[in-house]
């Protein structure tokens, strides 16, 4: 059976060049980067090369890159660290309703600690309005934390404009760039970014490695203690193989970005157009053009996401959904809810995220298999009656409003 992996926003396979260098740092260059001896010095050299590779990708300085265990840790470090370091200046933080839980739950934690958080609403395409942001700014706002690309619907938020507003108001700006790092051009200076979180396993590096960019001179209280590594900001023995792999993956992503984005955009648009054309009563979620090249997120009415994923899996296709069953709670995706999409339609959402390993044949295969599966599930659905052409509009009863 054909196997098609279309869940690259969840994770990516480690690319062979990266796996090769990672293996070398596991078995040969295995020293502790803090050790004085040659083994340690060789490991240190690998870490510092990676720091440069990552800094280059976002136009930062190497000493502004701090390695972490991943995007979640970097988000925690940036948000809690800024809050603690600036608590005498103010206690207000601005974020959006569509952030990843690594940001949302950290903000909720800070609310319990006495900070105040504004969760900005977004429009039907998950786009943020700059006037809404400006209005939310208070005298005691110490941090704006907003994602670059939404992980579910792929909408690209206007980071440069947000950065300009943050700078104008002298507020620190953190960007969760887990879904854009290595995929979209980022210039931390042009975009006025003070902090940025990135993750390795979204760009063909191993899991368990990420980093925080922290602009020189930015105050940040550490949230972990116990060593001088990463200049005391992130103590603990460095994950040298992961760091080295992350560095190489970042460099390669930068080199290939333009060409790969052209390719992915073409595949993405073919998939979106094909689904909307072949499946009646389907809709695209997220922005049509301000969209991550590899992201497709559609809602297929009258069916539920988990059963759709199971059916796709039986056909070898790996995807994800924002339905409650897959989000681990009783409510469907908070992102789709924030966009004003009603429960029934959100439960029928399907995310297909493309990457390096996908080909046009993969797109054709999905376009062949998906309509049949949707039809089969709709035939089972009490909300859908293809013969009588009766449709139950559960949405009309939906209490949610845009």
């Amino acid at each position: 059976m054909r196997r098609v992996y279309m869940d690259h926003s969840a994770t990516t396979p480690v690319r062979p060049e990266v796996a090769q260098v990672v293996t070398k740092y596991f078995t040969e260059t295995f020293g502790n980067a803090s050790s004085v001896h040659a083994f340690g010095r060789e490991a240190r050299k690998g870490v510092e090369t990676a720091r440069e590779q990552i800094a280059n990708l976002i136009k930062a300085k190497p000493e502004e890159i701090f390695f972490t265990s991943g995007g979640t840790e970097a988000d925690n470090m940036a948000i809690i660290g800024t809050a603690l370091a600036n608590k005498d200046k103010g206690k207000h933080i601005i974020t959006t309703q569509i952030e990843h839980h690594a940001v949302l739950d950290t903000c909720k934690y800070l609310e319990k600690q006495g900070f105040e958080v504004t969760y900005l609403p977004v429009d039907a395409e998950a786009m943020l309005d700059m006037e809404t942001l400006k209005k939310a700014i208070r005298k005691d706002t110490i941090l704006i934390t907003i994602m670059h690309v939404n992980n579910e619907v792929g909408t690209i938020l206007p980071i440069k404009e947000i950065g300009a507003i943050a700078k104008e108001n002298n507020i620190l700006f953190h960007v969760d760039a887990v879904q854009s790092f290595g995929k979209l051009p980022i210039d931390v200076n042009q975009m006025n970014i003070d902090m940025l979180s990135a993750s390795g396993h979204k760009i063909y590096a191993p899991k368990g490695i990420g980093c925080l960019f922290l602009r020189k001179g930015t105050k940040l209280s550490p949230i972990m203690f116990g060593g001088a590594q990463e200049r005391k900001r992130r103590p603990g023995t460095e994950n040298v193989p992961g760091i080295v792999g992350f560095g190489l993956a970042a460099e390669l992503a930068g080199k290939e970005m333009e060409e790969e984005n052209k390719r992915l955009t073409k595949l993405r648009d073919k998939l979106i157009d094909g689904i909307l054309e072949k499946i009646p009563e389907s809709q695209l979620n997220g922005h049509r053009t301000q969209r991550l090249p590899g992201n497709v997120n559609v809602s297929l009415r009258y069916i539920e996401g988990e059963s759709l994923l199971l059916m796709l899996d039986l056909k070898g296709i790996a995807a994800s959904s924002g339905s409650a069953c897959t989000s681990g709670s009783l409510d469907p995706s908070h992102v789709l809810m924030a966009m004003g999409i009603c429960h029934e339609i959100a439960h029928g959402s399907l995310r297909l995220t493309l990457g390096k390993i996908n080909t046009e044949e993969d797109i054709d295969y999905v376009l062949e298999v998906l309509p049949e599966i949707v039809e089969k599930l709709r035939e089972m659905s009490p909300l859908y009656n293809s013969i009588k052409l009766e449709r139950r509009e559960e949405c009309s009863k939906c209490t949610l409003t845009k």
Partner: protein
Amino acid sequence: MYTDKVMDHFTNPRNVGELDNANGIGEVGNAKCGDIMRIYLDVQDNIIKDIKFKTFGCGAAIATSSMVTEMVKGKSIDEALKITNKAVAEALGGLPPAKMHCSNLAADALHKAIEDYKNNNS
């Protein structure tokens, strides 16, 4: 995460559809929680002659719907009323803990359909 039996009922659901001559219909769930189960009964002389279902929901919701129709087809309505959600889950070799409450409602839908039949014929 699902047993082979659940996957069997999910991929080859028994008794899917509607009954034009149904004399009892029951529905539970709502679109908000992502599960709606609808059961159609054709009851003759207190015996469930035919039963069909339509379900909007996850794999467990579809499998339990299919299972419950298989369990009661040809049985008396008194026997059918004794079937619990738990018994349906057990007949499927169990469900993941998270699914026990949200998607395991097929027996409730069945009982509602029987209630509807009784109301129609009282």
